[in-house]
């Protein structure tokens, strides 16, 4: 028995913060103090609080240590592990809020979360199959193989109301039933771990933190539809995820959860890992399957849908990582339990990667129906530096910006679509008052122009045109007709593109035009960027009544654009590159951008 567990987060973020070194150090020290049979060091997946990494949690107390460095881990060992004294100043600030140190489960960040897909992330060692088995791992597979018919499995998933978490929100049970209805023969189960949305890392965290859940879920899906072979498509830019998944695969095979005659039931299933080269379009289902086949990742028209004619022309179920991560829990806890969470049309939970101008940058899993305000203000801890909330972007390059007046929108597939955005795969980027909405639209269009595969003209040419107009506007050369052109062009691209990449690419433009029309007009008519982001529309000036001639600005200016003698008023000339360094350094608030 171990009386204490030290959990060290080894997700990509904390990992880059040297958590591997901590594990090495702790193991060495425990051995030295002959505590290696009493205290256990566990390398886990992501806890979600990435902004405060590297993260270390000590049980049984459940003390959450933040931003741990080498000196920190040495103190945690010497004080907490050896003597039971909590190292106060390293404890996660939030858990000290009420005067005493609370277990991290009770902090604002964790309290409103419901962890279904992330159930085991940050709890078990992803590289140890024994830990997965200890938390009822592979029990769901055992249950379906020994007590349920394939039809019962499909009915259970249908009844749970689970919908695809990859973006489109298609009912999972229904998708499975289509593939199951195809005549018996070769069928495939594929898992979409391409995760191309900029800023999204939900799927990576599951792969890194709980890889076995995906193997188990894919085996369950295979049993339900009558498949015997699977593919996991994951981007090569996720080396840690690939490595951990590969280890899980080897272990699962060695213990007989994959291969012939699984658990002595006669059911056989095995799978391959296929690495993608990180093209956004390869996350689209038909392009993904084409890529697995060894061809260039380009989409093809549907129908036929993959459930009928998919990988190598065979019936194929393709599900997203997070969708699959819900499956074993639904089998174990029952469809009613799952359907008890969420809204009328959207059941269960959703994982979001919280990013942008928010205090608790990280990973959260919340019940469907929770409001954006709860996520941003409570779980997310609000906007840093006392700035005001301006908009939240969901759905990545296919989504839209949701303004402050819609913060009380409850999150589900329908409500987000209604406000001109979409659920997408779970990126949630928060923007404060200093963000320019035209610039944001430009950012996403820049991305889609790069990522458009070029197969169809509306997407290839149309997105490029959108981008050029947006660039014109941010450079102060826009005219009012441009705004109309943006609108008609957007509609045209949405209606005529081959796949959902093009069909949704104008969303960032359409939604910002709708909610931030005045900001576009300000750029076009007055040649001003109200947020002060578009450099071409800004000038920096020194206020004569505030400048005391301290010369600091002139000394920090990287291009020598500022001149003036000591104790005389300084001036900025046309060499200025608008980098803003002078504003940051001026102690007298004498420099402003207008």
């Amino acid at each position, binding site marked *: *028995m171990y009386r204490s567990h030290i959990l060290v987060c080894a997700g990509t973020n904390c990992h880059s913060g040297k958590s591997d070194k901590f594990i090495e150090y702790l193991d060495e020290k425990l051995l030295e103090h002959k505590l290696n049979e009493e205290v256990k060091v566990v390398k886990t997946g992501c806890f979600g609080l990435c902004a405060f990494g590297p993260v270390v949690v000590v049980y049984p107390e459940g003390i959450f240590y933040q931003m741990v460095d080498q000196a920190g881990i040495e103190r945690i060992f010497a004080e907490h592990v050896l003597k039971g004294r909590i190292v106060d100043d390293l404890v996660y600030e939030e858990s000290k809020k009420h005067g005493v140190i609370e277990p991290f489960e009770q902090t604002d960040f964790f309290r409103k979360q419901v962890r279904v897909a992330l159930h085991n992330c940050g709890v078990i060692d992803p590289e140890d199959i024994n830990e997965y088995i200890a938390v009822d*791992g592979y029990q769901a597979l055992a249950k379906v193989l020994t007590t349920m018919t394939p039809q019962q499995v499909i009915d259970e998933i249908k009844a749970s109301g689970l919908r695809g978490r990859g973006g489109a929100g298609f009912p999972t049970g229904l998708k499975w039933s289509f593939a199951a209805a195809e005549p018996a023969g070769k069928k495939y189960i594929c898992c979409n771990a391409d995760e191309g949305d900029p800023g999204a890392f939900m799927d990576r965290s599951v792969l890194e933190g709980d890889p076995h859940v995906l193997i188990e879920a894919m085996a369950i899906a295979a049993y339900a539809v009558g498949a015997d072979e699977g593919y996991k498509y994951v981007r090569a830019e996720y080396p840690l995820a690939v490595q951990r998944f590969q280890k899980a695969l080897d272990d699962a095979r060695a*213990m007989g959860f994959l291969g012939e005659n699984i658990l002595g039931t006669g059911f056989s299933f095995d799978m391959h890992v296929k690495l993608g080269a990180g093209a956004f379009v390869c996350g689209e289902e038909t392009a993904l399957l084409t890529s697995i086949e060894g061809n260039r990742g380009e989409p093809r028209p549907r129908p036929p849908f993959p459930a009928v004619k998919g990988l190598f022309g065979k019936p194929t179920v393709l599900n997203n990582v997070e969708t699959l991560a819900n499956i074993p829990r639904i089998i174990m806890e029952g469809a009613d339990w799952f359907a008890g969470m969420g809204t009328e049309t959207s059941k269960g939970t959703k994982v979001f990667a919280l990013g942008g101008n928010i205090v608790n940058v990280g990973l959260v899993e919340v019940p469907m129906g929770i409001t954006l305000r709860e996520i941003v203000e409570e779980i997310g801890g609000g906007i840093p530096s006392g700035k005001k909330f301006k908009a939240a972007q969901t759905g990545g390059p296919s989504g839209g910006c949701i303004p402050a007046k819609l913060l009380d929108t409850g999150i589900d597939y329908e409500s987000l679509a209604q406000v001109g955005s979409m659920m997408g795969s779970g990126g949630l980027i928060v923007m404060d008052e200093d963000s320019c909405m035209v610039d944001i639209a430009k950012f996403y269009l820049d991305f889609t122009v790069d990522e458009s595969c070029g197969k169809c003209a509306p997407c290839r040419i149309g997105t490029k045109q959108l981008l050029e107009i947006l660039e014109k506007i941010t450079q102060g050369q826009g005219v009012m007709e441009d705004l109309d052109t943006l609108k008609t062009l957007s509609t045209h691209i949405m209606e005529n593109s081959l796949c959902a990449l093009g069909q949704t690419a104008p969303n960032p433009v359409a939604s910002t035009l709708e909610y931030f029309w005045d900001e576009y007009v300000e750029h076009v008519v007055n040649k001003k960027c109200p947020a002060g982001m578009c450099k071409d529309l800004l000038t920096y000036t020194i206020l004569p009544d505030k400048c005391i001639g301290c010369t600091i600005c002139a000394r920090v200016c990287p291009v020598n654009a500022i001149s003036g003698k000591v104790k005389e008023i300084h001036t900025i000339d046309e060499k200025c590159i608008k980098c803003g360094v002078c504003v940051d350094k001026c102690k007298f608030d004498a420099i402003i951008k207008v």
Partner: protein
Amino acid sequence: MKKIANVEELNAMRDKLKDKIGIRHDVPNNIQVVVGMGTCGIAAGAPAVLSAVTKEVGRLNLQNVTVAHKGCQGNCENEPIVEVIIPGKEPVTYVNMNSQKVTKIIGEHVVGGKPVVEYSKYGRIKGFE
């Protein structure tokens, strides 16, 4: 790694592994056995006592017991000190502990529910005189 041949084997393995992760949850209703590990406690031999508690709890496979440790309680001359906290009951403080005494306390108090009066601080415990 050995192949798991059937569901029974899987279940047996799960049950065997369960306590590997048991403490990684909020377990408010667990019985707590807390060992004083301040400098004074350590000097008086608390590490061996803590090890003994851990081993005994493991040996008896007591899933409802959390082994914890804390700092100095200002009672240095009576170290090593062990506190047994059963939810809903008065905590009992044992003094001058050693490994043999630990075995008795775990067996009689933690498992049996009956405090070992003679090891307690004043040789008496409210309600157990």
